[in-house]
Every structure is written in C-alpha cells, then in structure tokens.
C-alpha cells in the first residue's frame, strides 16, 4: 500500500509554490501588448440613464476606446442558469442582465462605461472625463416594501419586483396549516440572515485575448468553473463556439461561491480584446469587489415550529423574503429554493413542512451563492427556532433535538421536502460534540466566568447539508439549465506516471494532493507518480467545477470511474502478457499477478506495453492507456454534524468572545484528514464572521455603507479561537464509489446558529432573557439588548 493513500494527512504539494511566491494567479499573467480597462461604475442606485458623453475621455492620452451599452449590439445578456417555477406553475420573472447599464442604472457599482487604455492610470484618468446624464429614481432597497403594489420598479418591463413566489411542497400547505391548529405548542421566530460579501482574498481578474490567425479567443479568469464560464459566455453572451474559446482559471485565491458566476467583466474583456486586437486586462480593486462581486445570504424569515404534548415536532412552516439584487446572477434563483427548502427537515423527523419563498428584486448588487448557499439560511432558522422552543418549553436544547432526530435505523430516510438522506447518525455526532466540548463541565466554567463578572453561555446546533451537487436529471426537473456531473481523464504515460485532467477546480481545497491519494490507493503506487491538471478548458474534459462541496464526491468519483476503466484495461494487457485469463489477474501494490501463481508484472511493464504494443492483444484492445469518465451522481450526499460554541460576554461593553468551539462532523469517508480539518476550521471562521462581525449594509438610498474593510468587519486572527474538529463519526455515503460526502461548506453552515444560541444562552443565564438578536451580534447590539 502507498504510505500516502486514502486516509493519510499527506502534506500539500501545491504549498511549495505558494510558499515561495511561485503561485500563478490570474493577476500574475501579463500578455504581450496588453491594454487595461477601467470600468466607470454607477454611484447611484437607481436612475434613468439619458446619455453618456464619452468624447473627451476618448481623446485623452493612451485611450484606445471607450465602450458603452450601445457597443454591444448582437451581444446577449448574462444568462441565468436556473429557472424557478412559482406556486401557480408560472416561470419566474427573468429580466435581461446586460453587460453594461442599458437605459437605466439599477445598483451602485453597475458598469456604465468602460475605458480601455495603454495603462490603468490612463484608463482611470480618462474615466473621470466621462459625463453621465441621468435622472435619479427612488431606490428599492427593503424587500417587503419592494413587493408593495406602488413600489418603484427595478425593471420597468416586469410586472412587479417579485421574481417568484415559491411554495414547497405546495401540496402540503393545507396539511401543515392543519397541524399547526392541532399543535400543543407553537414557537414562532422572525429573523434576518444577514447579507454578506464573500471576500476571497484574491480579487477577481479577467484578461481577454484574441488570436486573429485562427479567430480564437482566450479568457484568463479567477473562476471556480472555467468550463461553465466558457459555455455561458460563448453560447449565450458572445456567440463564440466552444472550439474557438478557451477559458483558463489558473491558481485562484479562494472562491467561496462568488467566483462561480459568469460576470460582465469577463465577457467585456473577451469582447474588447477581439474588437481591439489587443489583450485587455481587468483587475478588481477591493472597493470594486464590494460593489460588483455577487453578495450572499440576505433572507428575512418567519419560521414556526409546531410540537405536540410530548415535544415531538409535528410541523414546520416558513415565510422567507430572499433578495435577488438588481439582476439574476448565474445561480441566484436556486439558492433560496432548491438549496434551502429541501433542507428544512434538518436532522429531524418533522413530518409536515411548508416553505414559502418570495424572491425580490432590489436596487442592490445581485445576490447568489456564498459558502453553503441556502443551506446556512435553512440551518440557521431551524436551529434557532428549536432552541427557542426548548427555552419556551423548559427542556434541554440538546435533548429536544435528540428526541426528534431521524434515528440511525431509519435510513434511507425520505423527508417531506423531497430529498432522501442515504445515511447518517445524528446522535453519534451529538454525543461526540458533547464529549469534546466538555458540555458536562460547563457549569464550572460558567461559575468561573461569573466570578470574573462575565456572562458565559453554551449553544449547540446541528446541521445537515445536501452536497455533491447534483443528479442532473433531478436538477433538470427542478429548473437547472445545466447538468451537474463531473469529469476526469486519466492518462497513464508509457513509463507509468499518471496525469489526471479534471473538470473540478482547486482554489484552496488541495485537489493536487488529495486526488492523487485516491489513485495511489487504487493502483498501489505512490501519489507522487500522479499529477493533477485542472483549470484550463483546453486540456481538461468538460466539467462543472468546484462548489457545493462537490469536488471529491462528484469529481473524485469521476476520477475513480476513469481509473477503474484504466485498471480493467491494464489487467487485460497483463493477462495477455502473462498468458492468463483477465479474471485471474490481481492488482496489488502496483503489481499485476496471476492468482495462485508467482507470475507477475510491474505496473510500469504493463503501461509500457500499452504504448509499445509488441506483445499486445491488438485485435481485441486498442493501444494506449487513457480513459475518461463522466460521473453523474444518483443522489446528493448528506454530511451532517453537531457544533457547540461557548462564549463569554463582557456585560459592560457587550463584547462577545468565543471561548471554545467544537465541531463533530460526519463526512463519510475522509481522504485527507488534514485538508478536511482545514476546510472545517476555515468554514467555522466564516460562520463566526457572519454571526459576530460581517454585515453588508445599504442605506435607504441604495448606497453601500459597508464598502471596504474599514466598515465590513472581516474575522482577524484575534477574533477566532482554536477550533476542535472531529470527523470520527463516519456513515459513508452509499451511492458514490468513495463513500465520501464532502466537507467544504459544513463549517459555515453549522456555526452561526451555534454562536447565536450560545450568546442568547449566556444572556438567559444572566437573567437578561432575549428571544433573538439578529446577526451580526455586535457589542453595540448585545449591550442594547441587555439594557432594553
């Protein structure tokens, strides 16, 4: 067996280049003859655009051309990849999403014009000479106000600001309402899931390039899914067939969802490069990122939980307003619906569930998936309402959960919200988390804090997520306009080394290290004989990229399938050389042997024979050893876990400090524990950020108030504690070959409710009971709540 196979915490090979400054991020690329674009962005949220005067700008030094919306004749809008059908069976309202503002400005930061010049400073200087003629309109910011009859409209060609009114499962609605009437206890909670900005540390970059000699275009971009960008931009926006379009996403400095989407700047740079016959580069500043990267979350929800006299959950219903922003970003409509409503059962047996979601257009930056996408919103409201119910009923929140868990022996379990969980053991993670967090010892720690004049609280939350996105036929029925399989080509070279070309993409997840561990295990060679290629449509098979914790579950499965084909073929070659039957060939530790004999061949002997086919079954088998597989999952995977947070509050200032954080996750099988733990720690820090620090805020005029790190509070080293992680509770996925579930988003999903539950617990214990505080729980809010 290889020493670094499945289950080994192999050190990451990619680290060497990152640690020595040799990473190659998009902004590190400079093409010969490259020009630079500066985008003039709207500084008002809503206005009629009467005209744009560009003459002066166009004649400024170094300017190559100034573009406005009228320069994009024949160019399509940015497509939306998911169509939602509303409660009445009607398709959602879907406005055009132009590359630049057409006739109307709809959010601060929307591109109004673009200046391409020899240098970035020249482009920026010239942009100041552009004169906009516009009439400001009242901005639509608050979602509930936006859906009033007389609200100003974000899109004049739509009938209202309502994108869709979705009911799920609509047929259950009456039964749910009845169950509420029959309930012994109903807990109601209204809450906000705060708007966030993903903020990967690498801002977005796009470089368009055009080769006149073969009429082909190349886009270098900071993307989580280059093939998706190629398809969307080529087919829907610019009309470039895939064979004339290459999209490269080299090293990408974090994504967290916001680099999934196809953005106007990508299409612009590709388009302008062809027009100008020069490479055109755009590097986002952080200030631009705040007003042009798709934002995340932003739900306003009312949730109600019905319980019977024995505290069993009998029904759940929710009403959510979900902000879409001014336009539909690539996957925006799916986030509050299929990625949210389907998770409302959580880890519980609640038999009846009804979810209503109203998606609303506002004069704000488009909102789309951010780490967890829909699942954190579902988990937060559910785990909060359960805690509130426990408090109202005077029962232990852990025990109320335990009582209502889907039991270990009930899997596979079909929930009332259309999904079937394959495996899970929620009590196991609960018990593990209680043990690791020393739940039993809390009383002592509480007393110790109290003695120092501090409040102390403990909170827990369970989560379930649907990962390994996604079965294509299912999502197709649900309105996805794409398949969600993944691909891999495994190329074995003559001397035995292997190159895997995957449609998956690593922007921090460590594919270059963990994927080879799988192949090494399967063949019995060392991982350093395997190289992973990703991020370039020119040399990877069509794949859907990385998000939704799908890389190992879907991308890894594709690689396993391709490797299985390789092994099967290699066995045939070995059988021929060893003059045995295929069925008798065994592959172990990189050696092919004939069962029951001492005849064997090394891996390298067989791979060489595949390319030097002298003694080879040429009539039955083609030479070469290269296989491709497309893997389409048959179900989602369902990671789950229990998170426990312990906080201390300074009653004088309201400042919350996280004292302990414990995460017990069930990810099924784990390929590289070190990487998995890192994913959880990072996700938890983002969840703590959402719970305590981060808030993307607009004023009533649609000005972004949290527009830089001066006002948008990012978690720093001193804001997060060391995080205890455990993934020893493993109920492997039953429907993918590795038994893996995915771990990328869990941390961000499970942590916000754990933190808030802990804060409220602390206040409750101190005799300052408060039903709820919206995130982020800033010192000022805690203080105000305690002194209300």
């Amino acid at each position, binding site marked *: 067996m290889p020493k670094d196979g499945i289950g080994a915490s192999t050190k990451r090979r990619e680290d060497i280049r990152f640690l020595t400054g040799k990473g190659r991020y998009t902004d590190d690329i400079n093409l010969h003859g490259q020009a630079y674009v500066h985008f003039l962005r709207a500084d008002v949220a809503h206005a009629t655009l009467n005209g744009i005067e560009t003459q002066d700008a166009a004649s400024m030094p170094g300017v190559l051309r100034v573009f406005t919306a009228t320069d994009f004749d024949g160019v399509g809008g940015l497509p939306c990849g998911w169509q939602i059908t509303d409660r009445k069976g009607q398709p959602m309202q879907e406005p055009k999403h132009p590359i630049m503002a057409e006739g109307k400005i709809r959010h601060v930061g929307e591109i109004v014009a673009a200046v391409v010049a020899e240098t970035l400073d020249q482009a920026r200087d010239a942009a100041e000479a552009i004169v906009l003629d516009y009439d400001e309109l009242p901005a639509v910011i608050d979602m509930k106000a936006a859906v009033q009859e007389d609200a100003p409209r974000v899109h004049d060609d739509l009938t209202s600001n309502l994108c869709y009114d979705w009911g799920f499962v609509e047929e259950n609605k009456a039964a749910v309402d009845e169950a509420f009437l029959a309930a012994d206890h109903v807990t109601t909670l209204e809450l906000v899931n705060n708007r966030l900005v993903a903020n990967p540390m690498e801002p977005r970059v796009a470089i368009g390039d055009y080769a006149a000699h073969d009429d082909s275009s190349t886009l270098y971009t900071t993307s989580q899914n280059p093939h998706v960008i190629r398809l969307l931009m080529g087919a829907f926006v610019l009309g470039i067939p895939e064979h004339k379009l290459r999209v490269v996403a080299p090293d990408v400095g974090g994504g967290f969802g916001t680099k999934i989407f196809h953005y106007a700047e990508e299409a612009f740079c590709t388009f302008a490069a062809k027009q100008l016959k020069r490479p055109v580069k755009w590097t986002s500043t952080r200030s631009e990122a705040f007003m042009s990267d798709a934002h995340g979350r932003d739900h306003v929800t009312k949730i109600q939980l019905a319980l019977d006299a024995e505290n069993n959950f009998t029904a759940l219903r929710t009403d959510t307003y979900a902000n879409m922003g001014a336009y539909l970003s690539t996957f925006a409509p799916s986030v509050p619906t299929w990625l949210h409503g389907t998770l409302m059962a959580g880890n519980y047996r609640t038999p009846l569930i009804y979810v209503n979601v109203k998606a609303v257009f506002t004069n704000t930056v488009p909102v789309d998936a951010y780490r967890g996408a829909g699942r954190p919103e579902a988990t937060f409201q559910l785990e909060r309402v359960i805690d509130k119910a426990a408090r109202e009923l005077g029962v232990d929140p852990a025990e109320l959960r335990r009582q209502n868990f889907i039991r270990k022996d009930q899997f596979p379990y079909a929930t009332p919200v259309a999904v079937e969980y394959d495996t899970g053991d929620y009590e196991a993670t609960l018990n593990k988390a209680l043990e690791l967090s020393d739940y039993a010892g809390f009383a002592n720690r509480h007393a110790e804090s109290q003695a120092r004049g501090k409040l102390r609280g403990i909170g827990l939350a369970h989560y379930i997520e649907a990962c390994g996105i996604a079965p294509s036929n299912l999502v197709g029925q649900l309105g996805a306009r794409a398949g969600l399989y993944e691909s891999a080509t495994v190329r074995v070279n003559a001397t035995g080394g292997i190159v895997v070309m995957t449609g998956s993409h690593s922007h921090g997840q460590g594919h270059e290290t963990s994927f080879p561990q799988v192949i090494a295990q399967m063949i019995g060679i060392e991982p350093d004989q395997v190289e992973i290629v990703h991020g370039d449509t020119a040399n990877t098979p069509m794949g859907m990229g990385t998000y939704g914790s799908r890389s190992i579950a879907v991308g890894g499965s594709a690689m396993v399938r391709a490797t299985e084909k390789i092994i099967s073929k290699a066995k045939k070659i070995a059988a021929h050389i060893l003059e045995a039957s295929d069925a008798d060939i065994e592959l172990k530790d990189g050696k092919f042997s004939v069962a029951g004999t001492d005849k064997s061949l090394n891996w390298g002997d067989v791979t060489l024979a595949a390319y030097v086919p002298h003694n080879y079954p040429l009539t039955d088998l083609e030479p070469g050893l290269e296989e491709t597989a497309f893997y389409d999952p048959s179900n989602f995977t369902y990671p789950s876990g229990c998170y426990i947070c312990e906080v201390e509050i300074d009653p004088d*200032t309201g400042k919350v400090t996280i004292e302990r954080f414990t995460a017990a996750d069930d990810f099924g099988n784990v390929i590289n524990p070190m990487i998995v733990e890192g994913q959880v720690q990072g996700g938890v820090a983002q969840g703590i950020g959402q719970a305590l*620090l981060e808030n993307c805020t607009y004023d009533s005029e649609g000005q972004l108030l949290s527009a830089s790190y001066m*006002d*948008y509070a990012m978690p720093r080293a001193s804001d997060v504690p060391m995080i205890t992680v455990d993934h020893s509770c493993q109920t492997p996925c039953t429907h993918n070959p590795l038994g893996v579930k995915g771990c990328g988003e869990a941390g961000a999903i499970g942590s916000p409710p754990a933190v808030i539950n802990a804060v409220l617990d602390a206040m409750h214990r101190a005799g300052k009971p408060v039903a709820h505080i919206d995130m982020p729980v*800033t*010192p*000022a809010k805690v*203080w105000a709540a305690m002194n209300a």
Partner: protein
Amino acid sequence: MYNFDFVKPSTVEEAVAALQDDEAQPLSGGQTLIPSMKQRLNAPGTLVSLLGIEALKGISVSDGVMTIGGTTTHATVAAQADAYPALAYLAGQIGDPAVRNRGTIGGSLANNDPAACYPAAALASGATIVTNTREIAADDFFQGMFTTDLEEGEIITAVKFPIPEAANYQKFEQPASRFALTAVFVAKYADGVRVAITGASEEGVFRWAEAEDALSNSFSAEALSALAVPANDMITDLHGTAEYRAHLCKVLTGRAVSAIS
C-alpha cells in the same frame, strides 16, 4: 491615483520651502495619505516626504517631558517610550505591525481622524505640538474631525508630552477598521487629572471635564458613578449608536482609572 512629483528633503527648511507650493503636501508614513490618494480623495501635485529629515526622528526625555520627533513611528514609540508606558502601550495598539513601522505621530496628529489614538494621548497629556513656526497647546490644536490648527505648509516637528504620575489608555476597537470605536486616555498629574476621549464624538477628540473634576477630587472609578456623557454629540454609525458610545466613554474611563489605581 493621480500622479505627483516626489521630493525627499533632508532638512526642515528645505521641506518648508518645498511646501510653499499650494499643490504640495507633506508625506510621512503614508498610512493615511496613500489609501486616500488611491480613492482619488486627495490630489497633491508634489509630495514632500519628511522621512529624510533626521532631526524629526526620535524620543528624548528631560525635565519630566518626553519629546517625540514628528516623524517618529508608532513602532519606535511602542518600543522606546519607556518613560511614558501608557503612551508606549497606545502606540503598540495602533493598527498592526506594518502600519506601526511606517505611520508617524506627526501624521496621526495632523490628520486628526476622529477615531485615531494619538489625539487622545496628546489631549489628555496636555501635550504641546511643536511646528516649524510655533508651539501649539493640544487644547488649541484639535478643532474637530480631521481639522487642526495647522496652517497650510506648516509641519509638526515634535510633540512634547509632560509625563504624568500615572496614565492608562483603554481602546475599544471598531470591529472592521480596528481604529477606536471609542477610546479613553486618562492621565493623572500632580495638579489634576485629564481625560480625553476619541472615536466617540462628532466633534472629534474631546476632554470629559466632569470626569476630570470628579477624578481630581477622588481618583477612583466610583467617583464617576453619578456622571454620564451626553449622547447628543456622539457618533451613530454601523458599529454603534450614540447612546452606546456615550456608555463606552464611561465604562472605559472607569477601566482606565481602575487600571491606574
């Protein structure tokens, strides 16, 4: 950012001469000026770096007064102002190590950001701001948010801090920028106590006179119990209301006093 000429004189006289040009502006650590130039909020024609002037650097103590050269960095003050520990501590809490290695006391005071740290120390210490032309008492120097008594082209060459018997700085950070959401500097002198508060008021750094009187009478946190900072002039923003800031003024003053006594 707009382009400009860059000059780096080696004497105060040359710097002052270079600053005669209306479009010229002094540059010290650049930790405020450079980010604001990136936003194109500032467009000097010439930047006159003061960092080449040796005479503006360093810390000295004589007759109970600590004199800090105008371009002395926060890191230097943090490491070397042993004779005034509360001031050294304050400097060590500004921003982060990289900011402290570049940012200077003169730049900070000249900028008078309403959430900056040094203004609180200067005001609470009754410091004297020394410029190329005159000496200005801290009480006259700070004139509201981002406004000081400095004339065009006038540069801070040094700051003189009378060293108190005891002092303490309590900074409550704004969660995003990590500047002061509210911070309080309390300095106890033989002839009385001074309390200066930054981050809280629409008027910028200010002295809390009632607290000074009460503490000069009886130096204990209890002496503050009957007092309250009125919320009307306090800042309300994303990070806290006026009432919250007013409350912090009192809490932090109390903590500073407790830390000293």
